[in-house]
């Protein structure tokens, strides 16, 4: 057996590189820059290809379908923050879509109660993951079938309607920019405050970042995980409610594709897998960018079949870019 070479710090670069200092300003320090760059490029492409979308009405038509993805991605971000993956998030949003387009429309109290049950179901998943030391991937994959089954039992074929109050509140006209922008910015700000500024936010981040430190400082990893899953459950509820407001019907399968995209959005948004680092603003920007990307591709007359490949390639490109930049940053730091 060959003995692996132990890495010697700085051994690769024995002398200081003369241009290293000039290099440093090139390296962005914020983790959300990839998402911001992508959003600017995609939004510019949209504006050039279809100038009419730059009105309030045009933009709200484009941004409406992005809302469920924004909140589903924020939910996925919270799950990833504590070091887990949610493979059932698409069907979970679909199930809330079904609940809010059926039960909530006929009986608001019953509907709200079911949405609370959904949050409790997420808490239960968190409990299983923590208490049984089961990988979240298996639990959420199993749960995705439960969401699908419950959704199909309630609404076997697409149907249902959105409550009139839901349609009026989500189609209101707000000053300067479309209402959707206010909702997205509010989502990003609330999540930023909860996870980055609130005194308990650091506990949530601690579980994914350094579990031993969290336990040693007296916090319960069980309660922390339950709180994270409850937060994700609330965000899934919001995403499902917004799906109903956009599609005005119940269809469990309509949200199934969300699962795959949320992973891409969270990576491009600047979060770290394995937990610990969250960038709510980056995630929201990436979600909007991914949503607009599909529109841009259709404006360019690219076949819809290419959408998934482009999303996969954007994901790979974003990761490659971050890899390169982090290498560059390490190089700059060393000198």
């Amino acid at each position: 057996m060959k003995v692996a070479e132990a890495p010697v710090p700085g051994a690769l670069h024995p002398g200081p590189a003369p241009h290293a200092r000039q290099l440093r300003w090139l390296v962005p320090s914020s983790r959300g820059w990839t998402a911001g760059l992508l959003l600017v490029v995609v939004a510019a492409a949209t504006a050039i290809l279809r100038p009419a979308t730059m009105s309030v009405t045009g933009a709200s038509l484009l941004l409406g379908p992005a809302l469920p993805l924004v909140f589903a991605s924020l939910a996925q971000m919270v799950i990833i923050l504590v070091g887990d993956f949610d493979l059932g998030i698409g069907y979970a949003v679909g199930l809330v879509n079904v609940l809010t387009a059926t039960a909530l429309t006929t009986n608001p109290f019953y509907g709200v109660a079911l949405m609370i049950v959904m949050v409790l179901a997420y808490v239960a998943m968190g409990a299983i993951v923590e208490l049984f030391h089961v990988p979240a991937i298996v639990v959420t994959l199993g749960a995705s079938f439960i969401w699908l089954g419950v959704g199909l039992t309630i609404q076997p074929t697409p149907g249902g309607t959105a409550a009139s109050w839901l349609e009026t509140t989500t189609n209101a006209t707000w000053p300067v920019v479309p209402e959707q922008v206010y909702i997205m910015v509010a989502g990003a700000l609330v999540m930023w405050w909860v996870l980055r500024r609130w005194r308990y936010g650091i506990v949530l981040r601690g579980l994914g970042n350094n579990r031993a430190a969290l336990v040693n400082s007296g916090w319960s990893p069980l309660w922390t995980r339950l709180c994270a899953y409850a937060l994700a459950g609330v965000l899934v509820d919001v995403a499902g409610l917004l799906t109903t407001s956009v599609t005005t019907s119940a269809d469990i399968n309509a949200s199934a594709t969300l699962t795959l995209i949320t992973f891409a959005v969270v990576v491009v948004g600047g979060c770290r897998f394995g937990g610990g680092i969250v960038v709510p603003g980056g995630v929201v920007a990436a979600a909007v960018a991914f949503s607009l990307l599909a529109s841009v591709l259709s404006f360019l007359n690219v076949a819809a079949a290419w959408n998934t490949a482009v999303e996969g390639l954007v994901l790979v490109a974003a990761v490659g870019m971050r890899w390169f930049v982090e290498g560059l940053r390490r190089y700059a730091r060393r000198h």
Partner: protein
Amino acid sequence: MKMNGLVQEPNFVQRVDWSRARWVFPLGASLLLWLAACGISGRFTVDLLLDNITVASFVALVAVGQMLVVGLGDGSFDLSIPYVMTVAAYLCGKSSGGSNTYLVLALLAGLAVGALAGAFTGVLVVGPGLPPVVATLATGYIAYTIVLLMGNGSQVIVAPGLISFGQNSWHGLTLVVLAAVVVMVAVALLRGQGRYGMYLHAIGQSRAAAALTGVPVKRVVVGTFMLSGLLAAIAGILLSGYAGGAFADMGDTYLIASVAAIVVGGTSVRGGETAIAATAFGATTIALLIALLELSGAAIGVQDIVQGAVIIGVVMVVTRAQR
């Protein structure tokens, strides 16, 4: 046998250690489910078992690939399996042009695309350090697009030789089952005889420790993803022969089934161990469970709920029992 924390695998024949033969449980569960299915349908029949063993063969092939990936530890899962199956079946069908003339070349092309998809995933994992879940999703995205572009949403005709291979049987036992058994024995030999199995388990138990003892971690990780892709390609090609054509959504149910087969087989989903026979019988258990649910006439929604609940319930019991 434990040696310095690494599990030293005995050879294939010595492996039968009755005191901890895990495959007994899923085998027993399969037989119970078969009897229950016989009870529901009202007649005692072996055909039911044989039919489902054929279905289980496809599950078992992808589940063994999934099991090797899961064995790498660190939350490794292969989510690209359904798409790799489909893309391999499409490429094999398209390149044979529906005739037997170029069947061998077409088979090789299908297998090559599976291994290539696995290599792509592996490079994403060991290079930029993408989590396997995300890397396999990216590969899956790209494979699925290739499927859509090749097929235009329609069914792809496969070579008649492949169809006769997939559908011919000997007293109800199809050649597919034979092929799956041969492939699984080959994987068992690969794992048990060479260094590969030892390296895989070492990486799954502690990647850092494995790297320090000189295990070529990157090569083993890439190789494992390639193996999983290859097994998915074999399953996809055989499935297109059995089903008489390749469809865009032919692989959809195989992701959850592959994970379920591992879980039911009792292999730890946290990595560091593999059990081929247990996973194979886990696959028959899952196939029989689905058959039983269909026979019972339950609504499709209820079938989904039961499948999901079984996976969560079994994984809870298995991990509790292992501690």
